């Protein structure tokens, strides 16, 4: 079955119309509000002038002020820090943003003083009841296992003393996992993310050891005990998609069957050496594959089966809530990356990168942060201001945009267009998935 490709660009960025078997629908971009509209509304809309379009939108009930203004957030407390506990790695992934783990700087471990200062900063800025998050990244963080344990225990103790809640996460290549790591992660309710780029050879091509040997089998053997153990702990798989590992539905199915708590995909858009970056045809191919995964997700939800495809479940959740964001993430706002020597950067990807440097963990963010937030607001991004997807996307990953521009906008719009349609279908078929009581149960 072939269909005319949907118009994913136009309409000056105030509304986006889309169709499903349930009729025509509209995303009012301001506030990410989703409406059912009668057939032909898109055509009527495109015949209106700006004043008529504005009158129609104001009839939908939003207030006078837009949901998102131009003002960057002021003095946001630091809630999440990622610690580059080991700026070195035992793998030699071909596309690594950290250039093999050291971010192009001398390989080293984070000293205790820096980790402690990071915890102290989080605790200092948190009021009782607030949740703080510590993420351990690298390099390969488990190279510095002792620091992770010591920091986690220190943070738990400090947080308990102040009545602050904690969340811990770690992103690891999985090669160094030990049984006692699983026990420790379970005890502290870690979110463990394993970087896995496919099954067997597909993974091994992209994520080899420094000697060239594949890592997949080793990782599986080490991850399986964690998968079996997870209760408080949640073990997820994250797949970086390159032209070399495009069989996404198979990968997803396999990882879900293995018992991962969630499985997510992200496109390889920028590598320091340019290797394996997706080009336009590659992104088109990935979009088709993602939609196949999404269809599997829809079928599972309708059948009442858990299918933890995280890109999709996050999108469904956010579209349902009407999430609208002026930034793609919390980088530079409530979230920072800490380098091994205590430098504060916009996020874990900007570690050792002057473009994202914002002070030190001991002294806190400096004025560069204000400039960053003002500059990175989606209203300041020229191609975004007329894009209907801007408040769902937030303008795209800062790191990728700054270093490669925006090669993936069509991919993002295509994906969100599909997700909006899927949202309609699922909210019709399974309103309970979104928290509504099904009609049958009400009677």
């Amino acid at each position, binding site marked *: 079955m072939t269909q005319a490709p949907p118009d994913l660009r136009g309409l000056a960025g105030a509304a986006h119309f889309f169709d499903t078997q349930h009729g025509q629908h509209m995303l009012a971009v301001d506030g990410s*509000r989703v409406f059912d509209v009668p057939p032909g509304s898109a055509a009527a809309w495109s015949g209106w002038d700006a004043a008529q379009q504005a009158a129609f939108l104001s009839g939908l009930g939003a207030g006078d002020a837009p949901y998102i203004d131009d003002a960057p957030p002021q003095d946001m407390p630091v809630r999440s820090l990622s610690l580059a506990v080991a700026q070195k790695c035992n793998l030699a992934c071909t596309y690594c943003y950290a250039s093999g783990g050291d971010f192009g700087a001398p390989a080293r471990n984070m000293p205790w003083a820096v980790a402690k200062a990071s915890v102290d900063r989080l605790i200092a800025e948190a009021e009782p009841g607030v949740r703080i998050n510590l993420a351990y990244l690298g390099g390969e963080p488990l190279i510095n296992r002792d620091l992770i344990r010591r920091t986690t225990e220190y943070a738990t103790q400090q947080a308990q003393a102040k009545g602050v809640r904690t969340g811990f996460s770690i992103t690891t290549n999985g090669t160094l996992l030990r049984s006692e790591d699983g026990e420790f992660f379970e005890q502290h309710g870690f979110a463990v993310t394993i970087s896995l780029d496919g099954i067997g050879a597909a993974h091994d091509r992209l994520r080899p050891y420094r000697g060239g040997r594949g890592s997949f089998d080793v990782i599986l053997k080490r991850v399986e005990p964690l998968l079996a153990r997870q209760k408080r702990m949640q073990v997820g798989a994250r797949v970086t998609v390159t032209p070399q590992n495009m069989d996404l539905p198979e990968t997803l199915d396999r990882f879900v069957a293995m018992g991962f708590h969630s499985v997510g995909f992200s496109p390889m858009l920028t590598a320091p050496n340019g290797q394996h970056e997706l080009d336009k045809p590659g992104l088109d191919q990935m979009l088709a594959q993602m939609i196949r995964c999404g269809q599997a997700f829809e079928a599972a939800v309708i059948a009442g089966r858990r299918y933890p495809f995280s890109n999709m479940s996050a999108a469904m959740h956010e579209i349902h809530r009407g999430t609208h964001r002026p930034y793609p993430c919390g980088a530079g706002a409530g979230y920072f990356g800490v380098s091994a020597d205590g430098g504060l950067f916009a996020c874990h990807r900007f570690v050792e990168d002057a473009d994202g440097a914002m002070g030190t963990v001991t002294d806190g963010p400096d004025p560069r942060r204000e400039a960053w937030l003002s500059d990175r607001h989606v209203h300041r991004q020229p191609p975004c201001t007329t894009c209907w997807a801007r408040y769902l996307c937030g303008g795209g990953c800062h790191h990728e945009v700054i270093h490669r521009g925006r090669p993936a906008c069509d991919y993002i719009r295509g994906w969100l267009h599909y997700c909006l349609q899927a949202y309609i279908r699922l*909210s019709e078929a399974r309103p309970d998935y979104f928290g509504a009581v099904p009609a049958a149960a009400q009677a």
Partner: protein
Amino acid sequence: MPDQPKPIRVKPRNLTARAAYRVPGNPANTRLDGSVGNCFPGLEMDVRDLDRRFFPGLVFNAVRVPLNPVPEAPKNTQGFHLVFVDYMYDPMLPDDSSEDWVQTLLSAYRGDIGTKLGTGRWFLSWVQQGERRIDMHDEDGTPYDGMMVWRFIRSLEAGSDNPVSLALVRRNHEGIVDTEPVELHGYRRRYRTEAGVFSDAYDPGELTQSLCNPWSHDFRDCGCHYWPSNHPDVVMAETDPAHALPTGQSYNPIKAETYLDWLRSDRSPAGNVAAFNTVEQNRPFQIDHYQVNQMWSDLPIVVEGRETGEVYEADIDLPDVLPYPSTAEMIADLRTRLAPMEMTLSLQYLYAYFTLADPETADTARWPTLKDDLIFARRALIEVAIGEMTHMRCANQLLWELQGKDYKPVLTPAKTLRFGPGPGKVYPRSLRPLTTEAIDDFIEIERPGGYIDRAYARCVATLEQRDLYERHLYTLAVRIDTDGDEHYLRFRQMKEVLAKYNTGEGLPAYLRPVEVGTEEQARHALDIFDNVKEGLHDAYVSEAGKDYPEAQDYLSQVRAEMKILRDEGEKLAADQIGIPFWPDHDP
């Protein structure tokens, strides 16, 4: 002005869309003070429900004396009946309260007293506040009606310096108290917080549980003037617009114009018989209370007094009604034909009004219903006459809006009237009593689809052209056009009500002998009438010049003169003299 986009019906789907969507209805911050909460019951809530929980931990129902008690029914069920004990989540009774009275009440409810109150039917026996105790029964021991008890409960004060004591008694099937009463001590609940929010003691739905739903059981009894949930009493039957004759009349005028009881239980064509004049007469043929619950969806929608079926055709165009070729022609027709016609009609009706007998002197010995019927006929006729005066004003307004500074008021009655089906026939104007023949003519004049109806339909068709005329001119013409239907109905009712007094011998009992008098006899009335015309002239000119305060002054004067004219007309009629509104009357 550019056309706004037509409203598009949208359905908000996700949470932000739903949160922002303004649903028609009361805003979330509506407070009782601003709502329609009364004891009829009201629309938003029934205030009686507040007092059900006047005492912490207890829930009462106000039970009334049954209207038609069944012999086997338990005796003395009226009063403030304890429904159940509900202390677990009562905000006045927190577990950890340090107040002695709270702990005493809690241990009573949890202990023997709670158990005791759980068996049999318990009623409020008395309440006491300060020195005053109110017993909830007569001197002979008969319990008060629940609504009376409720009024006593309303008089209780809340607050920590106003303790309340009460006693509950158990009554058995024979209505006899059969165990020791239970006494409790506490305080009256504060129904609302300082912020005006209802106490958490009330469960969702509790304050609205006794509201009348417009489509439930007693909707049958809602009067046509009970504004929250009114329904029509009588309606005209649905007609097929395709069955209209070329004149615009229905091919079966009797069927089309017979008033039916909207609540008739026989909804087949055979049930389409004329409704009686009173609710009581129609009752036996109406659907019953229990049937409303099942049949409400069969009751047809009524638009413009007529039942409608599957499809309502708004504004069915009369055939062959074309717009005037030019504004000038419409102005000419309004000046020479329509406005003078309205004045003639209003004066004919006013004249006929004075010929109706005085209800106060009606021969009620011979005609027991005459007084009421006269009151009705007089009221209906004066309403129609006033309606025509309003039309005269509207026709003048159309003229001043269309003519601008060339406008001159039209206050001369037409010498002839054209009415009847199709092109109609010309009749001389005439001042005459409200005889059967006169009523028949008036019915014919006002008949929907008749000549006069069609005359205004042409104005409507002309002013409907949005690009040529301002919208309010169109609505003005529509108003005149549709009022005719109401006048038609009024005259038909008058005919029906008054017919029985026409015995064929002499003057019908509802008329008084009045003849058109001479100018000399009616000098004073005619002077007043001249003042009226002069005042209207000045008022219209002022309004045309947009000097509204001045116009208002003139109109107030005219109203005062009209009152005097009415009194004078009555006085003359009592002397058998009718006011000669125009001189060329031909007896």
